[in-house]
C-alpha cells in the first residue's frame, strides 16, 4: 500500500472508550541539530523510571544540522524492545516531513504538532493536538538564541499530560541528563516542560487511547548504548593500548572509553596513566599500531566500521599469519563513501570472516545487548591472547548508538590470563623455544615479548613464509605444515567461543538462526507467529564464529531453518553453506532485511508466513 494513499475511514468522534496501556510507540520527527536529543532522552528515561520496559531508536542523517531525524520510543509491557514499524503517537516538529509523517500513520494514531502546520486538515481519522510552540517558549526562555533548543522540551510536557507520564519523573530525568554542574540548563528545560504540561491540561481533551501506567519491570536496570558498554568492557578487560580513527558509528566507543580511562586508569598518587590512546592518521595505521602493541605484549584494540575494516584488510592478514593478538570492534553500518553511514546493518560479516588475502579466517563475536557488549569484550581480549590472533567484536549501529535498557553488568569473575607467553625464567628452564611449534596440540605456539632478557628470547616476525622457529623459508612442506596448524588452531577455537543461546520449542518444525540485534525482532516474531498463525518456532541465537556443533544439531532437528540476516546477500547463510553438509544446507532458508533501520518483528513474521505458505 502506498504510504501516501488515504483510505476512506470513519472520522473519529469524541473520547476513546478503551485504553492502550504501556504498549505503543511514539515517534518524534525533528530536524537534526535542533537539540531534540535531550527532550527525547528525557522522555524515554521518564517512562523507564516509571518501571515500564522501553527502547529508543534514533534514525538520524549523516549531517550536523538541518536534515530530518526521527526518534522512536517504544513502551512495551511485554518487554519487547525491538523496533516497531507502526507508530501510535507522532510528535511532528519538522515542517519538511510533517505531511508524509502524518499520512503514513495508521488510523486512530495521535499527533502532537506545531500549530501553524495545520496538520489536522490532512486527515480526519487521527487524534490531533495542535501546540503553539513558539508562543509557549517565549515566556519560559527569555534568551531568544536558546529558544530553538528549549522549544523541544515543551513536547515532553505535552506528552506527559496526554500519556500520564509523571512530571516528577520528567524532572528527575532532566537532573540526570544535565547533572549538577548544569543546573541552570536543567531549570530552563524544566520550565519549558511545565509550560507544555500546563498548556495541555488547560487546552486539550484527551481523545486517543494511549497512556502509561506505573509498572515494576525496570527496577535496578540501567540505560546505556552498546558503544559505551563495549568501552566499559575494554576498561575492565584491562586494555592498555587503544588506537583508532574516527568513523561513524564507532567513534563514540573510543570517545566514551577515553572518558572512563581518564577517570579510572590513572594512578591516584602519581597521576600516571596505565594506558595509551592514540588517534591514528587512518585505519591503516590504527590497526598497525594495535598489532605492534599486541606483538609487544599490550592488550590492544581498535574500533571501526565497514570502510575501516576494508582498509585494515592487509594488516589483519599479517596479524593472522604472524599470530598477533588484538581486538577489533566493528560497529557495522551501511555502505562505502557517502553511503548510509548512519543506518544500521550486518553486512560486514562475510568479508570479515575471511578478511585479507590468502587463506585467512577470523573469530567473530556477536553481542546482541549492552550486557553482552560488556561481557564479550572481556572474553574477546582473553580469546585474542589465548589464540594469538585478531578477534572481531561485531556490533552494529542499532546496538552501538541507541540507548538500551539493560541489566547491570557483572564484574568479571575470572582473573586476566595473558595466554602463552614465556619469560626469561621460563626460557632458562626450557632451554629455548620455537615460536610456531604446536607444543600442546592446540595449534597455539608459545611466544616471547621483545624486551625479554634472555639470549634465546628473540625471534623474527614475518608473514606466511616461516618455519616453526620463525625462520624465513619458502619450502613447500614448511608452508603447508604451518597452514595446517593454523587451520587446526581455528578448529580448536570452536571449543572456546561463546556458546549459542538456544530456545527449543518441542512442537516446532521450523527454527530461526539469528545473531546480534536481530534477536529482539526474532523473539517478538516467534510470539507473533504463535499468537496469530499458530506456528511454533525454535530459535538459536548465534554468538560467535567459528560455529559450534550446537548449530549443526539445531539444523538437524528442524525441517526448515530460517537464517536471519540484516544484509542483502544472506551473508551468515553463506558462511553456513561453506561449512555444512548438503543435507543440512538443503534445510536452510533466508530472511533478509537491509533497509538500514533496526529490524522489526513484523518484517520477519510476514516473511515466514509467506515462505511457509500460510
Amino acid at each position: 500500500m502506498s504510504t501516501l494513499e488515504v483510505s476512506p475511514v470513519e472520522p473519529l468522534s469524541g473520547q476513546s472508550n478503551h485504553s492502550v496501556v504501556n504498549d505503543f510507540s511514539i515517534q518524534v520527527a525533528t530536524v537534526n541539530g535542533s537539540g531534540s536529543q535531550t527532550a527525547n532522552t528525557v522522555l524515554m528515561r521518564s517512562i523507564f523510571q516509571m518501571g515500564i520496559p522501553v527502547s529508543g531508536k534514533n534514525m538520524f542523517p549523516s549531517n550536523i544540522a538541518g536534515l530530518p531525524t526521527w526518534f522512536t520510543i517504544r513502551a512495551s509491557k511485554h518487554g519487547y524492545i525491538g523496533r516497531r514499524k507502526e507508530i501510535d503517537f507522532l510528535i511532528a516538529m519538522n515542517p519538511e516531513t510533517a505531511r508524509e509523517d502524518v499520512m503514513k500513520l495508521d488510523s486512530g494514531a495521535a499527533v502532537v504538532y506545531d500549530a501553524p502546520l495545520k496538520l489536522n486538515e490532512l486527515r480526519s481519522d487521527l487524534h490531533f493536538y495542535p501546540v503553539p510552540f513558539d508562543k509557549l517558549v517565549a515566556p519560559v526562555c527569555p534568551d531568544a538564541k536558546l529558544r530553538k533548543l528549549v522549544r523541544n522540551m515543551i513536547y515532553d510536557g505535552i506528552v506527559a499530560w496526554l500519556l500520564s507520564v509523571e512530571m516528577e519523573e520528567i524532572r528527575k530525568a532532566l537532573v540526570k541528563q544535565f547533572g549538577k554542574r548544569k543546573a541552570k540548563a536543567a531549570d530552563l528545560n524544566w520550565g519549558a516542560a511545565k509550560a507544555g504540561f500546563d498548556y495541555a491540561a488547560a487546552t486539550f481533551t484527551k481523545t486517543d487511547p494511549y497512556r502509561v501506567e506505573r509498572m515494576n519491570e525496570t527496577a535496578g536496570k540501567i540505560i546505556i548504548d552498546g558503544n559505551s558498554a563495549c568501552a566499559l568492557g575494554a576498561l575492565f578487560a584491562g586494555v592498555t593500548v587503544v588506537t583508532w580513527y574516527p568513523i561513524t558509528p564507532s567513534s563514540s566507543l573510543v570517545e566514551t572509553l577515553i572518558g572512563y580511562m581518564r577517570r579510572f586508569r590513572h594512578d591516584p598518587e602519581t597521576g600516571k596513566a596505565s594506558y595509551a590512546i592514540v588517534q591514528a592518521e587512518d585505519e591503516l595505521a590504527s590497526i598497525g599500531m594495535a598489532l605492534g602493541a599486541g606483538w609487544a605484549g599490550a592488550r590492544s584494540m581498535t574500533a571501526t566500521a565497514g570502510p575501516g575494516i576494508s582498509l585494515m584488510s592487509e594488516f589483519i592478514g599479517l596479524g593472522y599469519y604472524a599470530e598477533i593478538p588484538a581486538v577489533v570492534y566493528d560497529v557495522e553500518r551501511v555502505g562505502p563513501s557517502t553511503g548510509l553511514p548512519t543506518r544500521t546493518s550486518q553486512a560486514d560479516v562475510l568479508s570479515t570472516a575471511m578478511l585479507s588475502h590468502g587463506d585467512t579466517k577470523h573469530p567473530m563475536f556477536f553481542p546482541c545487548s549492552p550486557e553482552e557488549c560488556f561481557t564479550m569484550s572481556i572474553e574477546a581480549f582473553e580469546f585474542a591472547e589465548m589464540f594469538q590472533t585478531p578477534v572481531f567484536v561485531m556490533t552494529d549501529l542499532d546496538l552501538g548508538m541507541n540507548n538500551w535498557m539493560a541489566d547491570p553488568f557483572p564484574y568479571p569473575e575470572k582473573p586476566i590470563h595473558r595466554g602463552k607467553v614465556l619469560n626469561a625464567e621460563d626460557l632458562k628452564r626450557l632451554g629455548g623455544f620455537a615460536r610456531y611449534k604446536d607444543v600442546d596440540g592446540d595449534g597455539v605456539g608459545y611466544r616471547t615479548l621483545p624486551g625479554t632478557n634472555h639470549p634465546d628470547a628473540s625471534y623474527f616476525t614475518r608473514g606466511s613464509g616461516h618455519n616453526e622457529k620463525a625462520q624465513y623459508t619458502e619450502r613447500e612442506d614448511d608452508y603447508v605444515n604451518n597452514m595446517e596448524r593454523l587451520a587446526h588452531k581455528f578448529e580448536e577455537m570452536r571449543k572456546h567461543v561463546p556458546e549459542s543461546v538456544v530456545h527449543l520449542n518441542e512442537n516446532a518444525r521450523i527454527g530461526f538462526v539469528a545473531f546480534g540485534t536481530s534477536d529482539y525482532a526474532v523473539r517478538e516474531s516467534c510470539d507473533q507467529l504463535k499468537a496469530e498463525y499458530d506456528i511454533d518456532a525454535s530459535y538459536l541465537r548465534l554468538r560467535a564464529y567459528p560455529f559450534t556443533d550446537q548449530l549443526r544439531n539445531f539444523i538437524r532437528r528442524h525441517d526448515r531453518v530460517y537464517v536471519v540476516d540484516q544484509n542483502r546477500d544472506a551473508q551468515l547463510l553463506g558462511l553456513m553453506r561453506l561449512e555444512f553438509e548438503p543435507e543440512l544446507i538443503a534445510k536452510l532458508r533466508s530472511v533478509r532485511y537491509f533497509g538500514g533501520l533496526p529490524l522489526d518483528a513484523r518484517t520477519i513474521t510476514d516473511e515466514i508466513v509467506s515462505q511457509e505458505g500460510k
Partner: protein
Amino acid sequence: MSVAAPPPPKVNRIGLEVLNYKGSKTTLCAGCGHNAISERIVECFYELGVEPYTVAKFSGIGCSSKSPAYFLGLSHGFNGVHGRMPSIATGALLANRHLMGLGVTGDGDTASIGIGQFMHLVRRNVPMIYIIEDNGVYGLTKGQFSATADLDSTLKTGIRNDLPPFDCCALALKWGATFVARSFSGDKRQLQAILKTAISHNGLSVIDVVSPCVTFNDHEGSTKSYSYMKEHEYTLHELDYVPHYEDIAVEIPDGTIMDVEMHDGSHLRIRKLQRDYDPTDRMAALAVLEDALAKHEVLTGVLYVNTQKPNFLELLHLGDAPLAMLPESVVRPPKSVLDQVMEELR
C-alpha cells in the same frame, strides 16, 4: 712443546662478542649498499655495548626491509607490510617504552606507499631510529623508479624520470623529527658517528643513507650510484661521537668545533669544514638542502639535532613500567568502580 692458548675473544663493555650482534647471512646482492649499512649497525651496537634484548627491529617491504634479519639476531624483529612499519613500531613502543626502536626501510617503502605513515611518525616524534636505505629504485621488483629518484635520472632501460624527488630529510626536518642526517653507505666513519648519535638520541632519528643498488641503479644516468656519489657528495662537517662512559677530551675552542650533548650524556663533536653550519638551526638546514638540490650536490652529515623537544611517549604521561607488563591490579579497576558506573547509569 707447549701450544699457546688462543687469545680470549674480544668483548665489549657488557661482555658480548661482536658475533652476538650479527644476524643471519645476507641474501642481498654482493656490493649492495644495504649490506654495508647492516655492518655499521652491528659495529655501532657492539661498540656501544647496547643490550641486544632491549632493541626491537622493524621494517616494511623491499630489499632494505629484509636486512633486519642480517643484524642483531638477539633482538626481536618485525617485518611488517609495505610502507606501514611506522605504525607497527609506534604500537610496539607504546606497549613497551623501554624498547629501543630500530626501523630499516627503503625509499619505495617510505617515500611512496609509506609517505603517510612516515609523515605521521615524524609529526609525532616517536623515539626510534629510522634508517632509509635510499637507492632511488625498487630493487625487489627489478628496477622501477621510486619517489626519491632525481629529476632527469634514468633507469637502466633508458627511461627518464620526469618528476622531482621527495627529499625525506627535508620532510623530516619540516614536520618534526628531532635528529635528521644524511649519509652514504660507502662512508664508514661518518655513518658510524651518525648511527651512534642516533642511538643516544631521545626522539625520532631519521637517517637517509644513499645506498646504491648495484643491480638496477648503479649505471651512468643514475644519481644514486657509487660513481655519482664520488663526484657529488658534499660533506657538511667531520663528526665524532664520544660515548657517555668516556671522558670527552678538552679541545681548545677555536670556533671550528661544536659539541652537542645528547640525552644519555654522550657527545656529538662536529668539526667545521669549508662552511659554517649549525645543525641546531632548522631553517638553516632546510636552506642548505634547497641549495644543494639546485647545485646537484648530495649533502651528507648531521642536518639537524634538537635534544629538547619531548617525544611522543613523553606526552602520554605513562608510568615507568611498560604497559605490556602491568599487572591485573593496575589495569582492571575494582568492583567498586563498576558499581559506581552502574549507579550513574540507572
